């Protein structure tokens, strides 16, 4: 392309002009450019993400992202990759030639991935796992498919063959499915994007695992979480800010039961956005945090929006739009919008929409959010009393077929049928409760070498088939394996302990239904080890000081003070580790 075609705005122009986003092309790939001072920044964005995968192939996009960046090696300019639900970003910041080198390198790698690195990058992904922060709300809302997959481990990575990865790349990482954005004082010269041809892909289908909303489920000890689907507007964005202020005011300042209250707003780029809210809680105050949370939402649904809150949030949002680097910050989102078929919007238009929002608009958003809300409440609590229906933790039917009672004879049984498997358990009211996974709607079957299987349905419900637990014969297991769709199979390495017959059978109860537990990430495990080592060291010093440190010359007060201080430091170091331990579980 010819860089002279691009008339970048000059210094000294108004914020509106400086923040304008220009639409152009590089080698047929739509490109957004905005003038910005400072180093050049660029991003190549593809319309592909975790939500396009299947549970049994989960992680393939992330793996491609890693492989595509491998040849950048240890370049000393700043670059990064990010795999999100529906978009994959390659981002770079540096001098002009560095930007050009990076983008050339990414495109070349996508055309010819370094497959010799495949197994190594798989290992790196397994230790990374740090993007697993979205928690469980997506899987309860969307199921074990589409947008729900962000809640799950990357179970597909282990079994991916080079041809699988190549096929995925050719399908999704194409010129037709990409948008480039660039921010800087000029358009980089000599830029070329050689990507294989392909078509623009539609956004992932929005699936649902919730028969009714508002809904809730109970799990974890971390406080109260909410998400809600709302129409993607400036009013909804501001509502997220107002909700955060109200939660902080009520739960932290007034009730004193929460330390952190926060909200987030993520456009899904399909005209809707996901609003999330969170309030933490002391373990003993969970009931009151839940009650306060419900009441804050109810107040906003009643239209009780403090005008001062709206103005504060609006002023901050406007400052974000008019700041010197505003366009740079808007570009990645604008690129996603463009990939979703939504052209970039002008600053004046955005600011006009922002300043047109009234408390009445926020009230409407609150009501819309109330209708789609999904609430995660701590284990042992319910939100049924507040009108949030219990999200499904069991199926509406059980398959018919061969029945295997648990060896422990606790009343639960496994039923293996021609169309699927069920675990049934006698409910407290005497009726049979079941969790069923039909083979045809099986998102993944986890297989362990010891013979254990776990079938996960697209609705997120799971059935554990443990031959030892139910006394299932080899013939039946072979039939089951043959009935499962091949693309759903996931081979896992030996596990540390297979469920044994004397252990209580997993019953289809809340929390064990479809919920992947809050998994401890690699980073958290590393932090645990480091914190306990450091904590142990300080504990030793503190103990030594306490026992041997009483020097008659310097007095008891000083000794007590030093000992106390050392023990306090030990506590401070170990406390975060204890928090990680309490919040997470090994899987």
């Amino acid at each position: 392309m010819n860089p002279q075609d691009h008339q970048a705005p000059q210094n000294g122009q108004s914020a509106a002009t400086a923040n304008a986003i220009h639409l152009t092309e590089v080698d047929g790939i739509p490109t957004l450019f905005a003038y910005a001072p400072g180093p050049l920044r660029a991003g190549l964005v593809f319309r592909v993400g975790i939500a396009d995968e299947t549970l049994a192939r989960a992680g393939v996009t992330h793996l491609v992202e890693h492989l595509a960046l491998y040849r950048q090696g240890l370049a000393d300019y700043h670059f990064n990759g990010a795999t999100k639900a529906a978009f994959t970003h390659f981002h770079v910041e540096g001098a002009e030639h560095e930007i050009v080198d990076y983008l050339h390198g990414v495109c070349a790698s996508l055309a010819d991935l370094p497959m010799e690195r495949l197994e190594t990058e798989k290992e790196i992904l397994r230790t990374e796992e740090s993007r697993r922060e979205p928690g469980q709300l997506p899987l309860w809302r969307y199921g074990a498919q589409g947008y729900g997959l962000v809640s799950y481990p990357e179970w597909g990575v282990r079994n991916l063959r080079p041809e699988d990865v190549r096929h995925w790349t050719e399908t999704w990482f194409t010129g037709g499915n990409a948008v480039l954005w660039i921010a800087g004082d000029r358009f980089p010269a000599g830029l070329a994007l050689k990507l294989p041809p392909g078509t623009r892909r539609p956004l992932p289908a929005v699936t649902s695992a919730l028969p009714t909303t508002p809904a809730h489920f109970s799990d974890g000890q971390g406080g109260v979480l909410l998400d809600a689907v709302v129409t993607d507007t400036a009013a909804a964005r501001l509502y997220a800010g107002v909700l955060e202020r109200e939660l902080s005011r009520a739960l932290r300042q007034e009730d004193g039961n929460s330390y952190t209250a926060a909200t987030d707003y993520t456009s899904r780029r399909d005209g809707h956005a996901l609003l999330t809210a969170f309030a933490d809680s002391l373990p003993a105050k969970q009931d009151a945090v839940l009650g306060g949370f419900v009441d804050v939402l109810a107040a906003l649904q009643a239209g009780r929006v403090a005008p001062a809150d709206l103005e504060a949030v609006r002023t901050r949002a406007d400052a974000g739009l008019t700041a010197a680097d505003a366009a740079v910050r808007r570009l990645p989102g604008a690129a996603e919008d463009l990939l979703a078929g939504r052209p970039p919007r002008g600053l004046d238009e955005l600011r006009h929409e922002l300043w047109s929002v009234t408390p009445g608009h926020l009230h409407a958003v609150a009501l819309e959010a109330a209708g789609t809300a999904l609430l995660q409440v701590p284990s042992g609590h319910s939100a049924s009393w507040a009108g949030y229906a219990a999200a499904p933790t069991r199926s509406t039917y059980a398959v018919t077929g061969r029945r295997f009672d648990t060896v422990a004879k606790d009343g639960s049984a496994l039923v293996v049928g021609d169309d699927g498997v069920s675990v049934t358990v006698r409910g407290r009211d005497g009726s049979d409760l079941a969790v069923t996974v039909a083979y045809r709607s099986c998102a993944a079957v986890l297989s362990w070498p010891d013979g254990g299987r776990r079938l996960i349905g697209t609705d997120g419900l799971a059935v554990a088939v443990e031959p030892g637990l139910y006394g299932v014969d080899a013939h039946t297991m072979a039939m089951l394996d043959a009935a499962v769709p091949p693309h759903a199979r996931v081979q896992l390495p030996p596990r540390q302990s297979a469920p044994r017959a004397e252990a209580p059978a997993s019953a289809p109860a809340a929390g064990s239904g479809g919920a992947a537990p809050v998994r401890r990430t690699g980073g958290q495990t590393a932090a645990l080890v480091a914190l306990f080592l450091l904590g142990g060291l300080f504990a030793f010093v503190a103990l030594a000081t306490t026992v041997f440190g009483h020097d008659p010359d310097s007095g008891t007060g000083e000794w007590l003070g030093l000992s106390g201080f050392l023990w306090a430091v030990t506590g401070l170091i170990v406390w975060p580790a204890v928090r990680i331990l309490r919040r997470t579980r090994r899987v």
Partner: protein
Amino acid sequence: MSSAPGADPGPDFELASAFPEVTWLRQAAAAADWAAVRQYHDSLPPGTDRAFVVGVLAKVDGFEHTLRQQLAAVPYDVLALTVLGLRLIEAGWEIRTDARANDVSREQFKAFHEHLGEAEQLLIRATAFDPSYDAAWAARLTTALGLSLGQNESRRRYDRLARYHPHHFTGQARFLHKLYPKWGGTWEAAHGFARECLLAAPAGALNGGLVAEAHFEHWLDLGAGDKRAEYLGQPHVHAELVEAAQRSVFHPQFARPYGWVTVQGSFAAMFSLIGDTAQAAAHFRALGNLASEFPWSHLGEPAEQYVQHRDTALRGRR
């Protein structure tokens, strides 16, 4: 509740005898005259315990039709939301009955929880729209009990009420229930809260009645026998009751607000049970022949118990 027929100085359990406007209020509700009900409610002087008025309205049979009509027209009518909420709570408890949990059937519990859930959601809207409305918070302290929502949640609700109404007698009495051991609390917490309310309240207010109520519930909880007698024999119990009565119903500024018959009756019962007939007689004299179900229904047939304790006290026998 009508008085026992024929008994000359028999106790009068009729609420309207103590508060004549109750008759008018019931008639207006029965006649579906929403405007009149609303006007009466809205003209109550500041500081009035409006949970009392809402309680009267919630007991009027068929009033739910009027309330639902009103809410269809005005979805955020806080008074209608609150009265309907309380009416559903009453209906729910009627289904559940006061029996011990073991004696309540699964179907009864299901219907009870459905009623309470619907009530709670109406009341959530009421407090969301007007967080200063005392009767709605008082009702939400009742739903918190029935829905087993936890000590901290009840405390939060009481604190929300107290932000606007620091000496709300009905709200305090409902929260006091949550502090009893049978609802997950402790006697220390219950007595502590009752005393806290007594000391914080203005002179001559009803709040001292909580001290009597807590001692009465504690005594009941000990079951028949020596432990009960032992409990009543403790000098500090008697002293606390005397102090609470002096600060409330026997204070010169006491003006017989809504709920006073129950409070005076609680003092009468406690002093009578202790055997201080002089104190008991003073409370019975203040009552005239007025009575309320609490506390007498916990001692046996309410009218019989009332007469028996009163006659003993007035005759001055120990």
